[in-house]
């Protein structure tokens, strides 16, 4: 039990440490990145001075890809984290609190399930043209409800276990029980949901950028692909469309692989423990 708890805590720590490193790298990376300036060399093919060529207003594609990296990846990761956090809070409340609170949360989730979240997302995006933070908030707020039912079922199962009952008997509060006993045991599910969220959020960020519904100053891989569309019939499409498209595919594959690995790792650990 103890090892299991510390093992899980370590996972949380790992996750947070990983995020901190990611953020730090992003900041470092942005400060070294040349600015995404327009220039006189428009629609240049890849060359020694522009490794991935330039676009129709002379911006360097490689710089664009790198500038768009945090705007696509980091936004997706942070939005997923936010959605998951909201989902856990709501699911825990729905599972532990009885009566009208639970009913209210579940009905709210039902309602949100009925309304297609992508429409809400498009509507708000068209209205406010979100930037970096806006996008995180918007995607986070429109996708949390997907996980509430799954998590609630898991938490309901876990709260009937002996360890929780004993802890309650000893006078532990629900918050303590949740943090120490319940969440650690549903960790594999949380990991899986998190990675699934990242994939979906990445597609949403790219999609919004592609549809031109984000702040025009925010470069994303999606918006780069959109800009490339005018040159679909020219050879320029090769260096305008392919790099952001490939980056997007690569990241999604990476997220998929990571998710599988985490899941396997968690399952293996669980097997070891049992």
């Amino acid at each position: 039990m103890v090892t299991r708890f510390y093992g899980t805590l370590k996972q949380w720590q790992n996750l947070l440490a990983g995020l901190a490193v990611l953020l730090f790298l992003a900041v470092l990376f942005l400060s070294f990145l040349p600015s995404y300036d327009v220039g006189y060399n428009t629609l240049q093919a890849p060359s020694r001075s522009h490794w991935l060529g330039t676009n129709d207003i002379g911006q360097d594609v490689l710089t664009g890809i790198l500038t768009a990296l945090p705007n696509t990846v980091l936004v997706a990761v942070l939005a997923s984290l936010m959605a998951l956090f909201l989902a856990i809070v709501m699911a825990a409340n729905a599972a532990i609190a009885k009566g009208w609170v639970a009913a209210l949360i579940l009905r709210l989730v039902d309602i949100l399930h009925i309304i297609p979240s992508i429409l809400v997302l498009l509507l708000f995006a068209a209205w406010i043209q979100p930037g970096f933070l806006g996008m995180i908030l918007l995607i986070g707020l429109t996708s949390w409800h997907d996980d509430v039912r799954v998590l609630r079922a898991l938490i309901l199962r876990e709260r009937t276990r002996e360890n929780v009952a004993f802890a309650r008997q000893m006078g532990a509060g629900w918050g303590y029980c949740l943090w120490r006993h319940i969440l650690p045991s549903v960790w594999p599910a949380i990991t899986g949901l998190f990675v699934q969220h990242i994939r979906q959020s990445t597609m949403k960020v790219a999609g919004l950028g592609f549809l031109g519904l984000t702040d025009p100053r925010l470069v994303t891989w999606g918006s780069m692909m959109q800009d490339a569309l005018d040159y679909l019939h020219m050879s320029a499409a090769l260096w305008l469309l392919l790099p952001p498209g490939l980056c997007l595919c690569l990241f999604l594959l990476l997220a998929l692989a990571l998710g599988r690995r985490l899941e396997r790792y968690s399952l293996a650990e669980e097997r070891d423990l049992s």
Partner: protein
Amino acid sequence: MAMTFSILKKSFLGVGLLACAFGVAQEVEASERLVMAERKGDRGMLAPYVHHKNGPGYIFTSYLFDTLIGQDDAGKPIPALASSWSVSKDGLTYTLALNEAVTWHDGTAFTAEDVAFTIEYMQKHPYSFISIANIASYEVMSPHKIQVTLKKRDAGMMTSKLVSLPILAKHIYETIETPARFLETKAAIGTGPYKLVRYEKAQGRYLLERNEAYYGGRPKYEQLAIFKMAPQAALKAMTSGQVDLYNRLPVEDIDAAQKAGLKVFRYVSHHPSRLIFNHRGLFKDKAMRQALAFAIDRQALVDIVYRGKAEIADTGFLQKGTAWYSDMTLPSYAADPAKAADMLTQQGWRKGDDGQWGKAGKTIALRFITSKSFKKMATVLSQQLTAFGFAVELRILEKAAVNAALKKEDFDLSLQTSSTLGDPDSYFHRVFSKSPKSDDYQGDGKMKEMLKKQQQATSAAERRAIVKEFQALYAEELPSYMLINPVWVVAHTDRVQPVFFDSGIAFGIPMAIPKNILMP
């Protein structure tokens, strides 16, 4: 997914055109048919109240509806529905003798009653492009003679109003209460060289046929088809002879068109992009507008955004090479950041510790709002302004949202484009009106006075002299800053020859497809 959709859409367009062209081919020989295409489709039903409020909408409608006075191949006024006319000494009374050979598309004879009806009807239901509020009265003197009296002299009556005003059929329109909702094929019955056969709104397709009874001679083509097509698909269709003319080919496709053996008709459009200021905000003062102009490098805009295929616009509203332009040296506001900084400092602006311009220690951000069609130019411009030290808040919105922001004056800068051709009368609308495409400029009222004065002018020379003053004052006061005068392109085959008027079509539409090209 949207990308695949776009590719699909493009290929569908190609297939759709082929199918449609075959459909048409069954009806007439290809040699008797002219096929025109353009990038955007659906210009609305081709009748005065229901065509879309833009140049192509008007031009396509003009193939069906003739005006009292027409334009020759140089754009100069020539007899059309009116075979001759005279103006009284005081410039208030116009006597028009109408062409007796004219009939409507349905065979009904055209008479002065139709003209009288049009005047009355358009005073009740104003037509968006031409106002005839200045007409005080009219008198039908005989079935083919009408006299029109104005409230006050209008030097642009002939070259702006009578050249542009489509004449409606009394027997069709007299029972119509809301012409904006009159969409039947009957609505398109006019006196022009072509008759409407079919209009498919969803596909933006039109099929027109020759008006055999046209009073101005036999129109050149038996059928005229107008399609919507992507430029690449159009170039392919043109090489295989399915399309004869493509209006407004993107400049980057010129090489491809020439390589395909097509003819390319290239002209400076005189439809410049210009920087619009909020005259009730930061840019209330002339000096501020001039300072901003000096901070902008227009040559860089030409080189980057248009890849050299455009001209730097003239700053005095009127563009070089157009009918009303007077040759003179005007301030060009060549990029001079030092001078711009000087002028800003004189206006009480200071650069803060962060290197950004502001007033009283506070950075002031310029709210730069524009629509998607200006995205490239806005990106380059805002980078120039940022490099100069302005904090720029760029927002690229849908057209409707931009118009709403302009109306609420919730902006500092915006980009717009409109024609500078046409009779000086049109400047009222483009400089002083509240329309989103206008400068919405009042200033000290001097410029507006000038325009009113030119309306009262008694000779062309007097008018020209006033317009020249207007041009100089515009360049100095900068109601808006004219940036780029883009080149427009028509790709065509040997079967048709585009024509460009230096005064534009009718009230100043800068397109090379007037109805003249459809006549022998």
